[in-house]
């Protein structure tokens, strides 16, 4: 049995089920309680769970992310939202120096079961401080897990997995996915962290992607199919830990790879993946790995300019043909 709901509703459903299941869980962030979140993800939660478990914070990202770390050390399971992933610079210390490190630095005395939801991504015409894709930055820090679902089904399954994980998990949610209506299974289910999913099987080339660019990759694959090019689309879903087996298996089959992400290309997580594939699967490759990413620029405001700054299906099609020399 399945039902059709939006990605944002799927996330809300996952959070709601976890709030009912886990009395140590609480939600905090800007506009999460009375308003029920700017994307209505937690609408009705305040009335149902009360002000101690659904908390509106002041605009103090360093303070409330740090407080979530402290509460997590005491055995609570905080689910915190940063309104935009761009604001991660405001809470860099509690996230990167505290949440990511305290388990290791204390010799394993505590874990930090913190979930940090980060709406991210380009395309909403929000200019340079509200449009970034900072996977490369957050994936750098050992101690954090990072997931970036594309579908409504995974958005729900991964938020539930994140809430049950003993370590800090960053959930990157593309803002332009929230309104998409998709089929999800009825009832409770978990999408395991660290498992990629083949969205489309193919034999000529592997597109590795995550989040919204998976949809663009699927569109590109359909276009290419009409021209007789058979592309496999691997949706990573989890960036850290990485499903290396899935990557190896696919690359060993197709022998050609492109990596598609919205990130600034320089210093991107796509670059890290490219390096790992080049280091370890060199003998499997028929051509160099290509990255299809954003430009090395500040995200522009004007729609005409912003559209230059993240990969569209036609860019992916071009890259595939370039790699396959077609």
């Amino acid at each position, binding site marked *: 049995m399945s039902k059709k709901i939006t990605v944002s509703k799927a996330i809300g459903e996952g959070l709601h089920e976890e709030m009912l299941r886990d009395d140590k869980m609480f939600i905090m962030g800007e506009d999460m309680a009375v308003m029920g979140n700017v994307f209505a993800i937690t609408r009705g939660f305040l009335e149902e769970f009360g002000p*101690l478990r659904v908390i509106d914070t002041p605009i*103090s990202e360093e303070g409330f992310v740090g*407080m979530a770390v*402290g509460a997590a050390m005491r055995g609570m399971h905080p689910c915190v939202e940063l309104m935009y992933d761009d604001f991660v610079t405001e809470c860099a210390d509690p996230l990167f120096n*505290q949440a990511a490190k305290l388990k290791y*630095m204390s010799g*394993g005395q505590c874990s930090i079961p913190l979930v940090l939801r980060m709406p991210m991504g380009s395309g909403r015409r929000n200019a340079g401080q509200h449009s970034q894709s900072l996977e490369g930055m957050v994936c750098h820090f050992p*101690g954090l897990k990072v997931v970036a679902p594309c579908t409504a089904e995974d958005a729900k399954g991964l938020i539930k997995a994140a809430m049950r994980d003993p370590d800090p998990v960053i959930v990157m949610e593309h803002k332009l996915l929230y309104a998409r209506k998709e089929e999800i299974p009825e009832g409770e289910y978990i999408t395991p962290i660290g498992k990629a999913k083949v969205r489309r099987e193919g034999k000529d080339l592997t597109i590795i992607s995550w989040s919204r660019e998976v949809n663009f990759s699927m569109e590109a694959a359909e276009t290419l199919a009409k021209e007789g090019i058979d592309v496999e689309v691997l949706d990573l879903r989890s960036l850290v830990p990485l499903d290396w087996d899935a990557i190896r298996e696919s690359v060993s089959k197709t022998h050609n790879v492109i990596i598609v992400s919205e990130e600034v290309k320089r210093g991107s997580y796509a670059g890290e993946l490219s390096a790992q594939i080049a280091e370890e699967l060199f003998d499997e490759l028929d051509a160099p790995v290509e990255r299809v990413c954003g430009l090395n620029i500040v995200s522009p405001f004007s729609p005409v300019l912003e559209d230059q700054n993240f990969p569209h299906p036609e860019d992916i099609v071009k890259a595939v043909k370039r790699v396959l020399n077609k």
Partner: protein
Amino acid sequence: MAFENYPKEFLLDLYRTMVRIRSFEEHAAECFTKGMLAGNIHLSIGQEGAEAGAFAAIKPQDFFTSTHRGHGHAIARGADPKLAMAELFGKKTGYCKGKGGSMHIADMAKMNHLGANGIVGAGQPISAGSALASKIMGDDSVTVGCFGDGSTNEGSFHESLNMAAAWKLPMVWFIENNCYGVSTEIHRVTNTPDLATRAAAYGVEYAVVDGTDVVAVYEAMEKAMEHARSGKGPYVVEAKVYRYQGHYCGDPAVYRPAEYMEEALKNDAIEKMGKKLVESGVTEEELEKIKAEAQQEMDEAVKFADESPYPDPSEVLDDMYTVDNERCVAR
């Protein structure tokens, strides 16, 4: 309450805690100077009165955070000097199995010690978050955030205190003001004579106390803890102390005027309390015995740390969840 009205054992315990902190620090300094310790250490010598007084007011169920200058807090809370010293040595037997070192002693299970921290200002939101956890769970513990003057100028201080105040969290902040952030005298970078007065901006009660008077600190902290525990929200106590050494062990502190140390030595918390105790009938021999016991205890701690094994290199991946290191350490 007047000094002489406190039970003698209570006063001797305060004295003993101060002496043990100083002895631990002097032993650590000696080990550092001899090259037995890697890295850096930051000593609490000169701050013992504040630390012994504050922790006497903290109950077993309470939690606390500490700083890079945190050995004294751990000892005052009842840390085993052997395990603390072993952590300074980077040994497997240390509180954090040698993964944290001097700036990161923690003991979450036995001491409710949520960790010393190498980042100035990191303990403020963590202590506020622990207090939030207490409020949500409805337990009767108070969380004490211990930190120095320098961190009161971090944004995290203001963000966290504002939230703790708005939500009436059971939290006490204990500022040890030794007047120096590394080399920078606090009043060169801060316009208020006291730091605790900033609490007023958030509608939080506060007290400023002489940190070289251990009993005065105890009394201020008792009041603060009672306030926080009874649901009235946070409280800030500032204790004025001296930092006898430079910022780190081996820093000659040439940036400081000579008068600073002259004042410090005139106000030494251990000397002052020793005199008062003798005036109230305690014998010099009793005090000497406390000092000798501390000396012996810390000698043994050094011996334990020195003789303990280092972690096995294979332990480098322990306590990390990541599973992708098998491919990373191919070298």
